[in-house]
């Protein structure tokens, strides 16, 4: 009865194994005995707490800016330019280190904008704000891409009907457009949060690695790996667990009832 061709199961299983086995291997590799000590060290707790705060902030910022951006890209015909869309997609494809470099050239103390801000006494680089900016920079495009695709896929016919029923653009957005793309909005938000949570290269380059201020969980893992690989694995699993919890918690909101 399934409409999936029978031959598709084999590559699908291989694909699933390729992406899941390494993670399972990681989980299998942790040393359960030392786990509590490893995970409750002040450094680990600081890193976890910082990661949660910055990822949440980056996600909120991404929603505030990314939802309107996706909406404009999908619904304003004039903006439907390859150039703009490409620029918005770029952070997805930049190596994080390059992303960090790019942020430094803009917002670093000697950066184009950073030098102006420096004169005003505002110093962004190597602060917690820099972490949030780096995370937003790399993570927001996830939201924009998944939302824009969904907006195009659902089309604007229902929005048209709602407008003829007297709904203003704001009401249409709130009561028609966003509910229609809710699954994409939720999964985009989850991806954004998760990507922000895992952000490493851009943070390291743009924000540095200072316990409690800019050393997020991935940076702590990187650092631990140099001296204590077991601790690094344990922290990685902690990160995996946080990501899984977020994905699982968001799941019911994604299903279109």
């Amino acid at each position, binding site marked *: 009865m399934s409409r999936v061709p029978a031959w598709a199961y084999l590559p699908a299983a291989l694909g699933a194994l390729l992406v899941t086995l390494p993670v399972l291997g990681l989980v299998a590799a942790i040393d359960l005995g030392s786990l509590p000590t490893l995970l409750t060290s002040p450094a680990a707790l600081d890193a976890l707490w910082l990661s949660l705060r910055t990822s949440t902030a980056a996600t909120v910022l991404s929603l505030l800016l990314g939802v309107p951006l996706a909406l404009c890209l999908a619904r304003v015909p004039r903006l439907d330019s390859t150039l703009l869309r490409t620029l918005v997609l770029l952070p997805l494809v930049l190596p994080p280190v390059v992303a960090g470099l790019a942020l*430094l050239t803009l917002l670093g103390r*000697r950066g184009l904008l*950073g030098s102006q801000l*420096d004169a005003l006494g505002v*110093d962004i*680089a190597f602060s917690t704000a820099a972490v949030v900016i780096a995370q937003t920079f790399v993570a927001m495009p996830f939201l924009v891409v998944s939302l824009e695709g969904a907006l195009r896929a659902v089309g604007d016919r229902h929005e048209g009907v709602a407008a003829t029923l007297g709904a203003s653009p704001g009401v249409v957005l709130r009561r028609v457009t966003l509910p229609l793309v809710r699954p994409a909005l939720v999964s985009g938000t989850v991806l954004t949060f998760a990507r922000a949570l895992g952000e490493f290269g851009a943070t390291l380059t743009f924000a540095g*690695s*200072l*316990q409690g201020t800019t050393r997020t969980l991935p940076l702590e893992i990187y650092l631990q790996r140099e001296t204590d*690989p077991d601790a690094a694995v344990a922290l990685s699993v902690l990160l995996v667990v946080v990501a899984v919890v977020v994905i699982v918690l968001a799941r019911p909101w994604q299903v279109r009832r």
Partner: protein
Amino acid sequence: AGCADDETTLTVLAAASLREPMEQLAADLEAEHDGVEVRLSFAGSSELASQVLQGAPADVLVTADEPTMARVADAGLADGAPELVATNRMTIATPPGNPSEVESVDDLGEDHGGDLDLVVCAPQVPCGAAAQRVAETAGVTLAPVSEESKVTDVVAKVAAGEADAGIVYVTDTAGRDDLDAVEIPDRLNTTTAYPAAALTGSAHPELAREMTDLVVADGAGEGRGRLAAAGFEAP
């Protein structure tokens, strides 16, 4: 931390290889001064130098080689001339038990190392340059399977058993049970020096100087003593 008025935070950037002694020295300073918190950031020396040049708020910098520190000093960001705090030498790291039976630098050459996976630092970074010098002195051409950007990446690969051997700092193998060291004789070995400097951007110049002095100070339990305990040699 850092919310109370009487609390001062001192930020110290240090080469990754200095991690253990620096953590102890930071605790020493905190013990001496109530309300002072020392925050440490460890990374590759070049990385740290770039951060300082880009305006990272930091009070003290300790790097793993002099040219890197010179970049910071030349930019006028060092408060006074940098002082050497320690030197380091190279060694061959292998997985525990040395399964590939590496005995000397000769065994790492391309004519011997057919099925030996050797990992070194890239020649562009300090530890890679040092490895290169060792190989040249021994008259060996290295055939690594990977040239890493940081010594810690070499250490990690050997410790994980992914590589059969790596050329690293002596201090990297000290006190680790997941690494064995094959000594490189003095006639082939090379020395690298670690300079430290207080930074001009510091909000607590006094304290920054004090920390620098602590690192270079003589005597067991402080500066050099801590460094020596971790395997570093005096400059």
